[in-house]
């Protein structure tokens, strides 16, 4: 168990180093980082002064080590737009993104798991047809289009929810729902197919041969086995929601990291973009680690290192 966890932790560290390296070299890939960061009509003198200030005139290896040592203590330099350290700006937006992702994930689980379970236990039933329709819908509807449609219907026509911002408690409903749709269909399809698979397993027949009642068979024998792959899907999807809500936060003007990222790109604020990219990676890596841990707790085959 400890060995399993340590190995997963080491893999995460290696991945994080990879992310940092990519983030550093991406800025230099296109040539001159100064040209990338400054507007086109900056004078050569201004550009030289900027180069001096950012330390871009030093050898790349020195810059890289400098970048790594600063990144280790959470220093990603100053945002060009705000002229304040980049990381605190990111952290400021974290709670809004987490709130959106958590509510979206809850919606996705509440829709996906029950529909997936009933569909898997009674394939071909009306609820299963509904579930399969939902699964198809969730995978094929583009979320920006759905966002605009929902704003049109529920904000503009019906006035049930605000169309943008985060100043009311119910503001979160529309963006969270849009964010949840694709994820709910993923969870639904995964739950359904796993239930179908597990309920045909020999050990379920053994459980029936013991004369256990249906509820015990479902909860003790089927659902616990379904939970294992489901946890990993939910973990991965949660990471995707935290890092992938750029469109949705932009459309709904939700003051989270995604909105900040789209603004930072517009401002050519490279230190801020870098800080956002790295921070999001750290969050996703931490989530994956937590998922691996949950996986091990649920599955003795992993816990005892098969």
């Amino acid at each position: 168990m400890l060995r399993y966890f340590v190995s997963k932790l080491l893999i995460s560290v290696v991945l994080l180093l990879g992310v940092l390296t990519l983030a550093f070299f991406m800025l230099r890939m296109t040539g001159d980082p100064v040209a990338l960061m400054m507007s086109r009509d900056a004078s050569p003198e201004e550009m030289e002064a900027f180069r001096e200030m950012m330390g871009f005139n030093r050898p790349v290896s020195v810059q890289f080590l400098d970048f790594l040592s600063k990144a280790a203590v959470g220093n990603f330099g100053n945002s060009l737009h705000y002229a304040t350290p980049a990381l605190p700006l990111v952290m400021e937006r974290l709670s809004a993104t987490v709130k959106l992702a958590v509510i979206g994930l809850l919606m996705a689980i509440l829709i996906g798991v029950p529909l997936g379970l009933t569909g898997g236990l009674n394939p071909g039933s009306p609820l299963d047809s509904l579930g399969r329709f939902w699964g198809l819908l969730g995978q094929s509807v583009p979320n920006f289009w759905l966002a605009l449609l929902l704003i049109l219907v529920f904000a503009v026509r019906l006035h049930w929810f605000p169309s943008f911002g985060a100043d009311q408690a119910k503001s979160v409903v529309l963006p969270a729902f849009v964010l949840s749709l694709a994820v709910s269909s993923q969870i639904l399809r995964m739950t359904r197919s796993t239930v179908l698979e597990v309920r045909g397993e020999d050990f379920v027949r053994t459980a029936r041969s013991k004369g256990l009642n249906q509820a015990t068979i479902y909860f003790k024998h089927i659902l616990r086995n379904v939970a294992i792959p489901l946890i990993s899907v939910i973990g991965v999807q949660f990471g995707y929601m935290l890092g992938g809500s750029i469109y949705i936060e932009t459309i709904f003007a939700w003051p989270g990291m995604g909105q900040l990222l789209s603004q930072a790109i517009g401002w050519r604020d490279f230190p801020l973009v870098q800080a956002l990219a790295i921070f999001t990676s750290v969050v996703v890596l931490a989530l994956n680690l937590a998922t691996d841990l949950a996986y091990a707790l649920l599955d003795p085959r992993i816990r005892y290192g098969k």
Partner: protein
Amino acid sequence: MAVILEVKDLVTKFYTLDGVVNAVNGVSFTLDEGETLAVVGESGCGKSVSMMSVMGLISSPPGKVESGEALYYTSQGARDLLKLSANEMNEVRGGQIGFVFQDPQTSLNPILKVGEQISESLMKHLGISARDARLRALELLAEVGISDPELRYNAYPFQMSGGMRQRVMIAIAVACTPRIVIADEPTTALDVTIQAQIVNLLKQLRAKMGVATIWITHDLGLVAGLADRVLVMYGGKIMEAAPVDLLYDNPCHPYTVGLLGALPRLDIHEAKRLVSIDGAPPDATIPINHCPFAWRCIHAFEHCWNENPVLTNVEEAHQVACFHVFEKGG
């Protein structure tokens, strides 16, 4: 001896996308108290499906027990297992009738401790506390020959060998001292030395508990040393039923003769090809009204293609379903 289980005219079909599979086509047999009944036949002949049907373990859909009776005799009289409610059936399954399945790799829940998988049956049927169930499960583990039961109680199936898992499966089957144990090819997935151990274990338990056993197998060598009586199945029907000695001394049905002839012999030393029965088992989706073995039978004549033979006494306690035996003298 008193009859404990009487199955009459059992018919089971599977409604699949490829058509209706006629898996069991009118199977009738009886099981006496304490008797060991072997059910033999090649894969797909309906031997497992018959027993699963009796116990309500056919998944529906696609399977459906169409007709028949399965009378289970107790001191209170007979009950038709096919007509019991789900709750009543759950009392019988695991409590009165235990099961040992073929593949111990997949028949145990991979994420539950094996001890719990024994205890849950004890708690359900004997109504005892978790604590008492644990103590009883430890005894059972020792009884099926697992050393260090305390340690093994908390093991997961993947931490055990195939033979040990099958021992656990047997402990589950006999946990509530059932009157019948149905063993569905319990040694097929095991290697030969372990097979012998498992067979001996089941024999010991049978002698100790006096439990009636239905042993589903295609290993005729095993049957000879184990069974009191044998049912030979083909195409979802019983072709021949006889006490084990009579069957080996005087096999009547051409299929039984073929099966026995196909056994490899250790006492003949010249190099010979193994004998087999020509042809393949019939496609069960085609309904037939003649002998299902007719396609492969070297003795088949006109009558065999016009009518489906029924089991008839050929001698005391020995029944055969074959026109050739009765009309052409075997």
